[in-house]
């Protein structure tokens, strides 16, 4: 499969920037997720475990311990809404409700068209403009229910 070959190449590049043993494993898992529906499938995990000479169980352990990783495929766009107290007290729950309504899914789920996965996250460190969320690498602040409509619409239209 092509993607596996691509991953192999990328992992080799990443490994060459290793300063000390293992210090690029987390980075290689980030790269894997970019290639495989925001997730780390077992065939990708095998490659990383071979390349870095660590047991595959360790890769599984990492993939399930850190909240940015997933072993199951996720949507094309990852929506992470901050649920920490600073966003909570500035109408965060309203935004959570609105996101669920707009996407018709609950947190932890993916839309039927595979476009969005909705997740919560701990503080994103942009509390100056809370409530905040990130979609993939992009952050959105000062959220209002109206803004949610507009943002989701932009992403949906980008697909057409």
């Amino acid at each position, binding site marked *: 499969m092509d993607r596996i070959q691509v991953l192999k190449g990328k992992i080799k590049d990443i490994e060459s920037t290793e300063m000390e043993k293992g210090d690029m494993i987390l980075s290689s898992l980030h790269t894997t997720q970019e290639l495989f529906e925001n997730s780390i499938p077992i065939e990708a995990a095998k490659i990383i475990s071979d390349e870095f000479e660590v047991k595959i169980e360790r890769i599984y352990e990492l993939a399930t311990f850190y909240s*940015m990783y997933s072993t199951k495929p996720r949507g094309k766009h990852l929506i992470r809404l901050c649920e920490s107290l600073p966003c909570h007290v500035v109408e965060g729950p309203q935004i959570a409700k609105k996101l669920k309504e707009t996407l018709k899914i609950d947190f932890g789920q993916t839309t039927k068209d595979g476009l969005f996965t909705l997740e919560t996250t701990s503080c994103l460190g942009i509390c100056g403009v809370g409530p905040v969320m990130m979609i993939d690498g992009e952050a959105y602040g000062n959220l209002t229910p109206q803004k949610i409509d507009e943002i989701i619409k932009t992403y949906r239209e980008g697909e057409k």
Partner: protein
Amino acid sequence: MSKVMTILFSLDSNSLLNGSKEYEEVMKALVKDHNMSEIVEIIETGSFGFYGKGVPIQILPDDLYYIVNSSGDIKEIFEEHLLKGRTVGHLLVEPYNLGPANLSKFKETRIVLRNVGFIDPNKIDEYIANDGYKALALALKMKPAEIIDIIKDSGLRGRGGAGFPTGLKWEMTLKSKSDKKYVLCNADEGEPGTFKDRLILEGDPHSIIEAMTIAGYAIGAQIGYIYIRGEYYNSIQKIQKAIDDAEKVGLLGQNIFGSDFSFKITVRPGAGAYVVGDETALMESLEGKIGRPRLKPPYPTDHGLYGKPTLINNVETFANIPWIILNGSKAFKAYGTERSRGTKVFSLMGNIANRGVVELPMGTTLREIIYGFGGGVANGKGLKMIQTGGTAGTFVLPNKLDTPVDYESIKNGISLGSGAVLVIDDENCAVDVGKKVAKFYMHESCGKCTPCREGTREIHTLLDEISKGAGKVEYLPRIIELAREISDTSFCGLGQSINIPVISLYENFKDEFIAHIGAQSCPTGVCEFEKAKVKVRSR
């Protein structure tokens, strides 16, 4: 060639979200269209420190601030101010209205944030022009022990929350004998409500590189790591660029300043785990393992990253170093209190009029921070409580506003912690707030030790029941007992700290907790009673 006019746009993560990049592009296009690129310079800088409504921009040499809310505003400023030389009165703000009131503007002290909002963080030249890397040049002429004596004498203590004396840490790492040592910058900023490290990394990345290099020389390390939160994309990019630039001009890498000292710095992203903020868990994570804390002792100064002596400091701690080397320990000691020297960068958020960061001398009171700089509670509501120091910090009632905040203020029930100041207005419910705190602990517990893993879940379940109107009177002492026991028996600082927020919240709002039990509704109307069971999500 020097330009006639300079316009500064703040492009840190918070300002970006307020639209600053978009406005900058509009301004750039206008300047270009009018062939004014030769005389107008547009500079991207770090945070001005505050986030009200709209984006503040600064115009030099006039030294005026405008608040921009739309591209139309930018056009108006361009046409009136730049073309015709007329001030646009209705967009103009007096600097003291931008956030800090006169009172606290007076006290604002910029040591850590000396360059943030003043220089373009993407340009190493600007950092150098502002005495950047001068401290490194000076340090390389000193003996390591001399540098450490300055840091020790300054009284600087760790700004990550624990407050360990920085100079002592450096000295211990220097004294550890080893073929290899590391300098580690803890940029895994995860304490909810804390965004100072992000603003330092994005607004003045070279100060961290310079400080880490000085540290490397002082303790005898060759490699530096910056472990930064995986979600901080913008910060990662900025610090990486700064490292590349420093390498290009020889301020990092082989034989720095022609000395025989060589030092390398690399960035490693995290992957979303609050517990990794613990120094030993961070080391595990950096080694490519799951981030669970190690047993201490041995301490990292002897046995740290890859088992080698490691100096680990927080971003803000490092940002102090070049200033101290340049200005001396005496100048540093002039700020702050007897046991808490220097300044602290406070992050202000929640229901406060002006959110943002402000650097004030240690020992500033909460009133000065919240009412002086922050402009008080937003939307004219009443102040219910303040949480200081992050989610692991204390909940404080308004009657403690006049208590000075420093490392010692925990004796008066106020955590300094990471410097987060969360303002909570009277439309919030104490039980709901407590539930959110418990959920945070439950989610972030790494699972290594039982009291933390099971206990935090239990507290959350009990608070959840209370918030649904299904609470029983015996739940309350049980929550307090659990919080105490988790704190006493947990392995690391995460579990050990849960008593601080939970008990301070309960003690301040006992009546409100009790009022939820056997009642028909939540006193503030926040908690939803008697609804279908909401599934408790756990990840």
